């Protein structure tokens, strides 16, 4: 397994896409954090609560979702690029046990996802604390809470990246898989969560962002451990289904 993981790490560090996705994720996170900070307390629709309230600072700190979704896209591409560029043939020639390849991709995507989450958390924390200090506000959240949101963003990014690897193996088409991720995260979950509040905490992207402090519609997120287990479980089920279909698929 370590051999397959080493190969997967090398695959991601020898192309430019991961850096591009990281740059995009961090840039969007920084822009959204700055915008949220600038509008906090202004009465604008995006963020009404001022930064000297727990709700306002939490709203800013939880803008890590762009980094998180880019982590998931990275996870998707670890699998789909094999089919897009027909490198699956060489991958399966070197490692004929396809479930092992998928496991290596899932683990590698998790590791890279942590980096995306770390970058996102670092940016939102720096922007949040920077704006709070610049405006002379008292930091209304405990250090442990800020650290928990940061850890949640990191862990959530890792888990979503792993889920992306499984999803990419199932869908195979890179374009279709990436579109699915965005439609699911921004449209389907918001629609479902908005219509059925009790369901919202159990939706995977909302569960992941709730780890980073973003409350789901209805305002009742799952406890940290439960949300983590939920996403890990969905990832495991997706991975198991993907492993089964991949093992049976003809690579032509």
């Amino acid at each position, binding site marked *: 397994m370590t*051999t*397959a993981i*080493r*190969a997967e790490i*090398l*695959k991601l560090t*020898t*192309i*430019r*896409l991961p850096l591009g996705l990281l740059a995009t994720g961090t840039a969007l996170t920084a822009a959204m954090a700055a915008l949220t900070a600038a509008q906090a307390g202004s009465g604008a629709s995006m963020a009404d609560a001022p930064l000297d309230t727990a709700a306002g600072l939490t709203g800013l700190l939880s803008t890590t979702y762009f980094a998180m979704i880019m982590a998931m896209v990275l996870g998707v591409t670890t699998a789909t*690029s094999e089919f897009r*560029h*027909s*490198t699956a*043939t*060489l*991958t*399966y*020639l*070197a*490692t*004929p*046990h396809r479930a092992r390849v998928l496991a290596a991709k899932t683990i590698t995507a998790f590791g890279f996802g942590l980096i995306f989450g770390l970058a996102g958390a670092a940016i939102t924390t720096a922007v949040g604390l920077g704006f709070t200090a610049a405006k002379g506000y008292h930091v209304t959240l405990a250090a442990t809470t800020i650290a928990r949101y940061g850890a949640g963003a990191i862990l959530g990014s890792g888990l979503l990246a792993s889920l992306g690897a499984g999803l990419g193996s199932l869908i195979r088409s890179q374009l279709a898989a990436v579109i699915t991720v965005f439609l699911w995260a921004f449209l389907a979950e918001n629609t479902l969560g908005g219509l059925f509040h009790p369901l919202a905490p159990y939706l995977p992207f909302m569960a992941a962002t709730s780890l980073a402090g973003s409350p789901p519609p209805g305002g009742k997120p799952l406890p940290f451990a439960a949300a983590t287990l939920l996403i890990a479980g969905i990832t495991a089920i997706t991975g198991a289904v993907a492993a089964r279909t991949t093992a*049976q698929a*003809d*690579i*032509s």
Partner: protein
Amino acid sequence: MTVIEVRGLTKRFGPVLAVDDVSFHADRGTVTGFLGPNGAGKTTTLRMLLGLIEPTGGTATINGRAYRDLPGPVHQVGAVLEATSFHPGRTARDHLRVQAAAGQVGASRVSEVLELAGLAGAAHRRIGGFSLGMRQRLGLATALLGDPGALILDEPANGLDPDGVRWLRGLLRGLAAGGRTVLVSSHILAEVAQIADHVIILDHGRLITQATLTELTARAGQVVRIRTPRAAQLHAALAAAGQRAHMAGPDRLEVTGCTPEQAGTLAAQLAIPIYECAAQAPSLEEVFFHLTAAPASQPPQEMPR
């Protein structure tokens, strides 16, 4: 010693029978040419051999085991299946580093195979900018990474320039001379004729024949080509004597199944002057078209590659 063995291999894609009960083998130290028209089932057979496509029936083994059960497969089998199996954004060296890591091959081997494939100068270039010929060379370099005992190559000469084709010919002959087993599919029959010891011919998913190149051409029978000003008269005489002769021109005949001595003696008895009379073994191309002629007259089914 048999290294690659295929028995009763069958693959059905829905209603299409792509490979139908095919059996053959390839031995150590030989180059085996794997021939067939487009859609004959060559690529499907090779992919089944490499565990990439699940057979509907039959077995395919390398060194006595299915590919998926081979320990350290890239050290036992190297394969080139398509010239597009590369991430275009990766450099040639990085591509090989990835494959070396996946196959547990020492990093030093990367430079060796780049040199062997004549790509040392392009090692740091992105593959997206490579020509088809360079991609083929990189594919061969990838196949040779693990210094395998068997090579399975699908149309490796595609896109190579004449220098590249000569290089490939020398490489494959050298590998076979070194005791490796080479199974190479190709549609360039003249190339196969120059490098192959054995030939397997597939058509419409079925094995037509497996034989050595010498057996194959001998089996097809030699053709005696005759030039005479009284070709029609000699044609009639040969036909009356039970020979298969046909007019190849107003003063030319081609006779199958007889010797130049027999044809010359008959001409002498009839006082027919002969300007030329020579026996010629059929080329691999002639044998190939002879063997695949009948099925080829049927409209070919579209088959997955």
